[in-house]
């Protein structure tokens, strides 16, 4: 294996779209390459990029959508191993289902191995909870487009920032209720509309309600339904860059997804180890045990291998689509304004 880098460390700046690279593990630069007459040091650029990313950190914005009670907050907290979403346990009596869909964005800075991530979790309470849920996806679509608009306005500024704060939604986790039957009409409608503007990753929530057979059957049925209805979830087929991408992503699309997950913020002792899990009278469900549920697959997919790709597809595809449409509608560039440091608002 030659020198390689992880996707999370490839691009340093949002403004320079990098060609999408394969997800691999970072390695220390090798000392001498036998084919060169001498060692030049070109490969140290990887180390330089890595250092730069560590200094600047990066933004990641993840949205969660689904009916109330499907474990969205718990799952996000489990994914990022911190309380980044509004309380996951202990229901509050005062908490009522909102009458309309609300968009709540909460930002956190988390650090790991010297790398800083500005994580924003965007919650959508009220989605799908009313008796009449017609068009309840509209506030969500509106929010996503507003972030594209914000970015666009910054981009076309005369005096623009060196690093435009990125509030665009990089990933939307859509929570499917584990009925074991099929998708619900609302699921179809939401994903049909939103897969065109954002990366949607469907997950089957509270998967501990299904046996292995039920899970396999349900996943198959959901995949089929998504296909029949022309819904392209992330990773979208049309954006596979090369054969290697395609092979890897095909396997994920046709076998692993939608990930059937279980979330938990409680730890239990199992075989001498502390594990995240759920304790029932008939056994302990281990969240990170692949024979119990696919949480670890989802985590690795979103965070360890495809994090950078999610951002790139958002920037290169979804954002560009929005931008092109805006420019076409306007018959040219949107009006430019000179913005000073004071005017600019921060999202954190």
């Amino acid at each position, binding site marked *: 294996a030659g020198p390689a880098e992880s996707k999370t460390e490839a691009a340093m700046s949002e403004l320079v779209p990098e060609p999408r690279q394969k997800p691999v593990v970072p390695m220390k630069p090798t000392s001498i390459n036998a084919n060169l007459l001498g060692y030049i040091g070109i490969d140290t650029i990887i180390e330089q990029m890595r250092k730069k990313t560590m200094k600047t950190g990066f933004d990641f914005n993840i949205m969660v959508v689904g009916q109330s009670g499907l474990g969205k907050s718990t799952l996000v907290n489990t994914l990022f191993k911190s309380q980044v979403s509004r309380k996951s346990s202990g229901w509050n009596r005062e908490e009522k289902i909102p009458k309309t869909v609300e968009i709540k964005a909460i930002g956190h800075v988390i650090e790991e191995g010297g790398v800083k991530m500005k994580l924003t979790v965007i919650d959508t309470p009220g989605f799908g909870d009313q*008796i009449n849920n017609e068009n309840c996806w509209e506030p969500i679509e509106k929010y996503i487009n507003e972030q594209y608009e914000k970015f666009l306005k910054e981009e076309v500024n005369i005096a623009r920032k060196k690093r435009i704060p990125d509030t665009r939604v990089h990933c939307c986790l859509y929570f499917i209720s584990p*009925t074991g*039957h*099929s*998708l619900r009409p609302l699921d*179809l409608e939401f994903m049909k509309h939103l897969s065109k503007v954002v990366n949607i990753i469907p997950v089957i929530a509270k998967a*501990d*309600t299904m046996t*292995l057979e039920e899970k396999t059957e349900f996943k198959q049925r959901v995949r089929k339904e998504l296909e029949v209805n022309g819904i392209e979830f992330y990773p979208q087929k049309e954006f596979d860059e090369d054969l290697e991408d395609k092979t890897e992503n095909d396997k994920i699309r046709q076998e692993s997804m939608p990930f059937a997950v279980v979330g938990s913020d409680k730890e239990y002792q199992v075989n001498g180890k502390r594990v995240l899990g759920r304790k029932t009278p008939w*056994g302990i469900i281990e969240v990170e045990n692949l024979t119990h549920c696919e949480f670890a697959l989802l985590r690795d997919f979103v965070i360890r291998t495809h994090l950078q790709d999610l951002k790139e597809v958002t920037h290169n595809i979804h954002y560009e689509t929005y931008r092109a449409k805006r420019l076409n509608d306007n018959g040219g560039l949107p009006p430019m304004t000179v913005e000073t440091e004071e005017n600019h608002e921060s999202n954190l």
Partner: protein
Amino acid sequence: QFSDSAGYVGFANLPNQVHRKSVKKGFEFTLMVVGESGLGKSTLINSLFLTDLYPERYIPGAAEKIERTVQIEASTVEIEERGVKLRLTVVDTPGYGDAINSQDCFKTIIQYIDNQFERYLHDESGLNRRHIIDNRVHCCFYFISPFGHGLKPLDVEFMKALHGKVNIVPVIAKADTLTLKERERLKRRVLDEISEHGIRIYQLPDADSDEDEEFKEQTRVLKASCTPNLFIPFAVIGSNQLIEVKGKKIRGRLYPWGVVEVENPEHNDFLKLRTMLVTHMQDLQEVTQDLHYENFRSERLKRTGK
């Protein structure tokens, strides 16, 4: 039992005669089942009555559900146990709560219940009253999602609209998705919300002093649940699959982390629900007749001014 002592007339034997006649006649019971699709209703019904009421079941996909409205499907099955015949009708309501807009999804259900009342009223007022068939809905199992935090707006609206027409028994199926703590919390929250909205669910009657000890004990255990032990709403698990546990074949669900046993009271309230239904079938019918039907009848007669 009673000797031919002086002063004994013999009408104390009447309950036995009634009992014998009822056994010969058989019982009729109509149970309605309401809840979103995928909440485990059919599995539970099959488990409760140890039958397969839905042999050729077709589950529609989401795209088909978009077009569908609420249907009413009644299946009847004859169950016989120790000489006692039960003609059980299960009324299903597929499509309930599935549409994006569920605004009017229980109109069909209300109409069905009223129609049965109407038919009975008509038969009751008729000339030939020998063979009145009672198709009135005696009990409605309302399924609450175990995935939520309590009642949904639709649940509240439904129960408010129906609690004056039918005995409502709230049920939480697929209860194996909850830990014991989550179960308690959910039950408490549901009961709080029910009382907050003034919803009248079916209340277990107090056992009369001259009822037999077994019945009293059963009712007491079930009733204790209304406050401290919180059995209502019943949190149940259904299954028709047999799993081998400690050398015995029992009904359950096999997971990688363990086996959930349907008839294990430490795992769920299935046995309590079945006991409740079986020991209170008579009472459910009486309340339907004396309360819900009479309400309907007086409204109806007032309206037509008959």
